[in-house]
């Protein structure tokens, strides 16, 4: 009798699921959790190597809803970046994966976000962006579009913070945007981000069905469907599928990833080349003026050393180094004492 279907490291998809969600039915965040499950399963990520981090919010609850056998840390509001930075320093062999909300990232958390980007912490940072604080019942967050409306008619007067532009400006080397309802694209983006080394951010429009899915919202499913503008069509070809250069044919171009995988972009429509930062910035600045909601991988660049490499840390986890490697010798102490005599 055949066992359950497994992935390349021999695990069934159930190992990539979590406890059942307590979010509202139809919440965009649940779609993202499911997509993460699929992407992690298909990429054959070892669950027990993953540190799932989050802040506080509906979005921040979701790490409990996928990848059960991983290590989870639902920390405090807006401060996931620092906690994640510390965790990845303690054990650089961990695969850092964070889920945050737009309030958690762009309102209370923007300071830590900025500095995490600067430090190039090796981390996949997913923003589940619904333009509101879901968990506290629907107030505007700092990513809410100017002029968008709450259910009760309240209009947002302030310009939104654009997570992607900001990340690009600050030197992030993987910057993407997606729409939770476009699962197909999101899976490919997630896979590419998983293959990336260093900091990767994906800003995902993730409608809040309870507080921000009405007419007048710019984060509703309808708005997303009507305004999504993919900047390219692409797929991720993982390393073990042995992507050859040009393997996608003449109508594609390839962006190789450090893990051996490849982002393969179709030469149709805009066909944005994600290696071109200038073009990415131009796209984003145009986007800011237009109602179109651009999705895709704006920018990817390999080779920038992530934080542990910057600090020239040993390869092994600091967390479990034996005493001999962390406590200097008796002679060293004698030398130190001597210097104060």
């Amino acid at each position, binding site marked *: 009798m055949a066992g359950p279907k497994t992935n390349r490291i021999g695990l069934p998809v159930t190992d990539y699921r979590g406890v059942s969600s307590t979010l509202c039915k139809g919440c965009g965040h649940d779609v993202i959790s499911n997509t993460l499950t699929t992407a992690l399963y298909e990429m054959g990520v*070892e*669950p*027990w*190597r993953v*540190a799932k*981090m989050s802040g506080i919010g509906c979005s921040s609850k979701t*790490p*409990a809803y996928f990848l*059960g*056998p*991983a*290590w*989870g*840390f*639902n*920390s*405090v509001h807006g*401060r996931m*970046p*620092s*906690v*994640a*930075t*510390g*965790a*990845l*320093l*303690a*054990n650089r*062999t*961990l695969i850092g994966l964070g889920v945050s909300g737009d309030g958690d990232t762009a309102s209370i958390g923007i*300071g*830590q976000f900025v*500095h995490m980007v600067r*430090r190039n912490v090796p981390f996949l940072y997913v923003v589940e962006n619904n333009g509101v604080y879901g968990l506290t019942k629907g107030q505007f967050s700092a990513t809410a579009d100017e002029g968008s409306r709450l259910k009760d008619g309240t209009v947002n007067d302030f310009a939104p913070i654009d997570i992607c532009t900001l990340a690009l400006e600050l030197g992030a080397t993987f910057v993407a945007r997606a729409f939770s309802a476009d699962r197909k694209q999101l899976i490919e983006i997630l896979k590419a981000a998983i293959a990336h080394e260093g900091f990767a951010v994906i800003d995902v429009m993730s409608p809040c069905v309870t507080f921000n899915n009405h007419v007048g919202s710019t984060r509703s499913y309808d708005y997303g469907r009507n305004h999504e503008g993919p900047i390219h069509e692409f797929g991720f070809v993982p390393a073990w599928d042995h992507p050859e250069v040009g393997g996608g044919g003449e109508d594609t171009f390839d962006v190789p990833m450090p893990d051996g995988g490849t982002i393969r972009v179709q030469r149709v429509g805009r066909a944005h080349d994600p290696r071109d930062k200038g073009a990415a910035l131009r796209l984003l600045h145009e986007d800011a003026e237009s109602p179109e909601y651009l999705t895709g991988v704006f920018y990817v660049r390999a080779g920038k050393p992530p*934080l*542990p490499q910057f*600090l*020239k*840390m*040993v*390869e092994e*986890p*600091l*967390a*479990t*180094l034996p*005493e001999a*490697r*962390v*406590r*200097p010798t*008796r002679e*060293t*102490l*004698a030398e*130190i*004492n001597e210097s*104060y*005599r």
Partner: protein
Amino acid sequence: MNESTRAAEVPGPVSVNDLTLRVATVNGSGSQTANNTLLRALFHMGLPVSGKNLFPSNIAGLPTWFTIRVSGDGYVAPKRDVNVLVCLNPASAEDDVRSVPPGSLVVYEETLRCERYRDDVVLVAVPFQKLVKEVCEPVALRKLVVNMIYVGVLTELIGIEVAEVKQALDKAFAHKPKALGLNRDAVRAGIEWVRENVSRVSPFRVERMARDEDLILVDGNTAAAVGCVFAGVTVLAWYPITPSSSVAETVAHLGERYRRDPETGETTLAVVQAEDELAAVGMVIGAAWAGARSMTATSGPGISLMSEFVGLGYFAEIPTVIVNVQRTGPSTGFPTRTQQGDLLSAANLSHGDGRHPCLYPSDPHEAYEFAMAAFDLAEGLQTPVFVLSDLDLGMNLWMTKPFEYPEEPICRGKVLDAEGLAKMEDWGRYKDVDGDGVPYRTLPGGADGVGAYFTRGSGHDAYARYTEKGDDYIATMQRLALKLETAKSRVPEPVLDGPGTAVGLLAFGTSHHAVVEARDHLRDELGIETDYLRLRAFPFTDSVREWIEAHERVYVFEQNHDGQMRRMLTMEFPSLGARLHSVLHYDGLPPDARSVWEPIALDAVPSVKGGA
């Protein structure tokens, strides 16, 4: 006596090995090396010394005073009265000169014309500016080198051994031979100038003493840093703030030196200068969660900013070490003045219930030991632990016992590896297996796919599952409280003396040193015998309770306005509150003995009077 020296009727004979020497300069003028040379030379003569640097909260240009006390009796608390003064700062000269008692020795730059202010002290007018021109050609360096001239002057005047001064110089300029030469010349010029121009013997002199103990001279921040490095700290995140910065900077520095493999260039110590204290503590909480021995160092405002995260550490049971080098609060307060002012904040930090273990080192040796012990304590209890130092301990140089190499191996507490986990039946991250309140934890990333759990600051049950059930919550809170009970058997016991009399003195941290001297004074001068308990940690051990119970009247001496330690003791021992009386010192300077004995002597306690 030549013109440079004027003396009034100087009362009394020459006093030996009992003097307080103060150098008044301008900060940023580079006098620190000179001052430390003096201190080190005196120290190497076997003399009990202490050095206190009083500096403003700015970088350069304002008055600074460095005060050395030499006490043949071994007292290291400061004394109010200075008897040897060096005046180099025009801005403060008049006040400085007027502040010393009659009979003091006053050395000053001759152009300051301090003879205008006093005629009841021994005045030595030195042409410092002239002399420095002679010994130091590079104009730019004169500002620095001039300081060594007063070292020479004092050396000759009060009898410091030239050989010791030389050795101290050699040490200070070990890697700067050119500077060494210049500074040596300056010292010599000072000595020679005195020989040629001053005939009068100083009323205060020093003489070599035999010291039994092997001591070192080090500041508390350095000591704490050494302790952290030998505790095996692996992640340090911090944000600069006076007076704690040098804890982190020294850890980082020692890390570069002793924790980076000279061959591979790889380090076992990750150091991040965070963007603020919220991030610093977040990083160390994250690191500790993932299994690092982590730490941060900060001071008052930083403690406030760490509040939310420390509550998370408490509730989610994440060990980390927070070194708080206290300065004068509240708010920005006096960033360059000392205080024991964060006692309540540290122990009760964060909203909601919860208390945190705190260690109170009183000298660098203890700063070293407690910093090291804090890691084992934190990991042993799985909770954040504070080391409460202060500016006086942290930034001043202290004579102290050399650091002892830890005899015990590092103890990571109840950490399960795959094997350990396999042996545990029905493991739960937050299950109390041993009855001490401390559960067993696994470390993220175990490569075997077992032992993973979900950490959160919201409600969780014994298996780390989300819960909103009242019973789960009550169980958790009671277990956390039990951990604090457990802590009592793991924190350093107090050092105590008595019960012998009805009156007890209780102090901790740097307040200790004034008490030592005050008790002698109370006994020898006033006939008041006192017992003494030096507290070393919160939670308070049973021995603290018993000792207080054995005394009718306990004076709690501390450096803050609110009597925070008295309050903490009262909270923990509600039935003993009536016996506790505050004796306070809170002007931002390290306390002297008089601050302790005077209020006690003034306090007309019948039982004490009877005993006298």
